[in-house]
Structures are given as C-alpha cells and as structure tokens.
C-alpha cells in the first residue's frame, strides 16, 4: 500500500512493524516527529511498546541499554546535541554487544547553535562501534529500519545500528512510501531471541571490568565482528529484495551509471538524489560520470568501493561534515581505502551543506569540473 507520508512517519511505521518492547524517548529537533508518531500509535492501541519518557538523551540510551540487556527489542531516536550527550553510553552499548536500533535525524552541532542538517553529529560517533547506515529517501528509511533489526540481532553481529536520515531535508519531506504488511515483516524479521539476558533464574554478569590482559581482545572481537557484518548487511539486503522486491545497491554502497564512467561523485544521504540529477545532466553533455552512494559508513566497505572504481580516473567526495584541522571524514576514508592499491584515482574532497545550507546541482557540477580538470602539474600562467 502506497501513501504520501513524511519520512519521520516512515521511520515510525518501520519501527511499528518491528514491534519493539521498549521505546525510551527524549524529544529533539529534527527527530521529534518520529517519537511523536510512535506515541500516537501506542495511544491509539496500534502498538503495545512501553514508552519511557526520560529526562535526557543520556538517560534515553541508558534505558535502551537496560531494556536490551533484559532481552527486549528496543528503539530510540535522537539528533545533534542529543547524540553528543549519548556519546558515553554509545560505546557501552556496542561493547556489551546489545543490538539497539536508533534513528538519527542528522543535524549540525553547536556552536553556533543550528538546528538544520549536516552529518557532523553521527560522523562524530564514527568510532563508537555502532553500524551506521545513511539513507536517501523516506522509502529507504522505512526499509532500512526493518533491515537494521535483522542485521543487529543476527547472532554473528549483535551490534547496535544507527539509521541516519538528513534532518529536515529528508525527515520533514513528504514522499510516496510503500508500507509493508505486518505479516510479511513478521516472516522477514523473526522474534528477537537474545544470546544472553538478565534473568534472576540464571544470573550472569554484564558489563564487567576488562583488565589490561583482556581489554584488547574484547576490542578486537568487536572490531572483527564489525568487519564480518559487511557480509550480513549484504545478505539482509538480498533477503529483503527476495521478500519485498526492493533493494539498495548491495546494502553497503549503491552506484548510479558507474559502469562506463571515468569520474565519480561520492556522497551520503540526500545529496545522492541531487547527484543523480546532475549525473543525468552531465551525461547529456557527453561526460562519463557516475555516483557512488555510501550507505554504510561503518563498517566502511573498502573492497566494494575499490572494485566499482576500476576505470575511474577521479572521484569528487562530497562531505557534509568537517574534521576541523584536517578534512571531511568520507574523503579521509576513501583516500585511505585506495592508498595500498596500484591504480589509484585522483580524489578531491569538497565540504558542502553544513548547518542546513542546500547542496545544489551547481555545487556538484563545480566539484565535477574540479576533478575532471585536475592534473599532477598545473601551469601558473
């Protein structure tokens, strides 16, 4: 059934279809519509989740941790300063291997205070051990929430997943969305069966101290699992395609007109939709250019990116974030991925769309021109 709905509603409907037992929530712009819709569903008797109204995002993620430790499927959502306040507990959730799913309506970080979109909030949590999936449309947001639970709760993964959607630019946009049927989702996503849980009948210790003789082994185990999750993310994307006849590239990256391209634009989130339009325009002018949309930022799909760039001479990387004092995060990752390859494309980084500034077709065209005309030696005439 297709309906024209807001992307925040699409996220909420995706969550409703997964029927989490506990939803700790604290409102923050531009995420609030997601939890408001979930509160509506509970109030209207359409969803039987326990909603916990907490006093901060630090408490929201802590309550999600506690509920998940009891073996209950949980959901929460946040953005910007809220995600920053969760920082401490994000690492604990990942280290304790609790498959919480959280939506992040990407928003800039203060100061100056700014409620609009960029990716600085979730990029700053890059190293927390959460899988990060960036979506481009309301449909992808709904579908990715359902996939996120299937990835997170897989016994070979057991890692939390952030589903990142551009604040306002996507979260408040209305689009036609195909809403999946409950019985089909139930077939796709089995009931959550935790590997371990807190149970007075069989006591265990969770979250103990890791002394110097074990801490590194635990960290390596989580890292190895994150790398292995690459295959699970691909599998889940394929299974989703089989069940619902829809998929998003290979689940990690999605390409557009890249097969015969000489140049590529790499981006995340809604900037990819703008780039698709620009690619079509440039193709009409005879330019062989394509798009690489990075959906999974963590784990970072190095091999997948390298193998789709065999004939690529140059990549323009659009970053909606900036690591102050160095460069955009996606640019750093992409260049590092190619460093040990014999054949490397020229890669240039472009910072765009911070704090809600639009990324326009002209921006993408400028980035393309700079990568197309770039050479090792330039004449200063």
């Amino acid at each position, binding site marked *: 059934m297709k309906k024209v709905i807001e992307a925040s509603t699409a996220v909420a409907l995706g969550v409703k279809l997964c029927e989490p037992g506990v939803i700790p929530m604290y409102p923050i712009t531009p995420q609030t519509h997601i939890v408001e819709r979930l509160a509506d569903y509970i109030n209207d008797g359409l969803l039987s989740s326990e909603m916990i109204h907490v006093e901060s995002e630090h408490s929201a993620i802590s309550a999600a941790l506690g509920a998940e430790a009891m073996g209950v499927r949980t959901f929460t959502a946040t953005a910007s300063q809220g995600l920053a306040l969760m920082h401490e507990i994000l690492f604990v959730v990942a*280290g304790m*291997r609790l498959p919480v799913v959280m939506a992040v309506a990407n928003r800039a970080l203060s100061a100056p205070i700014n409620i609009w979109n960029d990716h600085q909030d979730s990029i700053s949590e890059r190293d927390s051990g959460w899988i990060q999936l960036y979506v481009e449309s309301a449909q992808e947001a709904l579908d990715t929430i359902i996939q996120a639970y299937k990835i997170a709760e897989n016994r070979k993964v*057991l890692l939390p997943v952030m589903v990142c959607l551009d604040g306002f630019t996507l979260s408040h946009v209305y689009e036609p969305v195909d809403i999946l049927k409950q019985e089909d989702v139930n077939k796709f996503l089995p009931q959550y069966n935790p590997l*371990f849980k807190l149970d007075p009948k069989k006591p*265990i210790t*969770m979250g*103990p101290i890791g002394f110097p003789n*074990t801490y590194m082994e*635990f960290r390596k*185990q989580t890292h190895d699992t994150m790398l292995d999750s690459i295959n699970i993310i691909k599998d889940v994307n394929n299974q989703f395609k089989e069940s619902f006849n829809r998929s998003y590239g290979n689940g990690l990256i999605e390409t557009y007109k890249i097969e015969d391209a000489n140049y590529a634009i790499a981006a995340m989130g809604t900037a990819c939709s703008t780039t698709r339009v620009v690619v079509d325009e440039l193709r009409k002018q005879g330019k062989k250019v394509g798009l690489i949309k990075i959906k999974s930022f963590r784990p970072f799909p190095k091999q997948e990116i390298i193998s789709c760039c065999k004939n690529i001479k140059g990549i323009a990387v659009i970053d909606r974030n900036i690591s102050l004092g160095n460069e955009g995060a996606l640019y750093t990752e992409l260049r590092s991925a190619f460093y040990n390859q014999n054949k490397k494309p020229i890669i240039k980084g472009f910072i765009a769309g911070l704090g809600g500034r639009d990324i326009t077709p002209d921006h993408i065209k400028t980035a393309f021109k700079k990568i197309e005309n770039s050479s090792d030696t330039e004449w200063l005439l």
Partner: protein
Amino acid sequence: MKKPKITVGAVIEEPGSTIKNKTGGWRSFRPVRDKKKCTKCGLCWQFCPDNAINENFDVNYDYCKGCGICANICPFKAIKMVKEEK
C-alpha cells in the same frame, strides 16, 4: 592472573566472580578500628561500598580497597587509616 574467557560482550556466565577477584592488594591505607571508641553504631558497615565490613564491624582485608569512607563517616573517630607498609 588466569586469563578469563573472551565471551561475547564480556559477559560472565557463572555468578560469584566478585568473590574470586580479591582486591585488597589495591590498598595503600588500611582502616584500623579502635574497639574502645567504637559504639557499634553500624554506619561503617552501611557505607562501605565494597561490603568489606562484616556484621561485627571487622574489616575483610581481602576486599577492602582502603577508600577511607568508613573512617570519614565514623562519628566517634574510632577508625584510623594507617599506611600500608611492605
């Protein structure tokens, strides 16, 4: 120290690991109780964060980390923190 099992999420499946893990070696000051001053009010027993004071208000030095909360809380100054010497 025996290397513990590397379980998923560092979960310890068997209860009782806190008893096995003696922490008295962390201490640099030990609490010493003057039985003449002690009225057995029980505040030290209540406040000890490590359950290292028993119902007779004796300190279990296998687990006492020497934090000094008992000495600080004692209204009769019956507990002194004495430097540990090798």
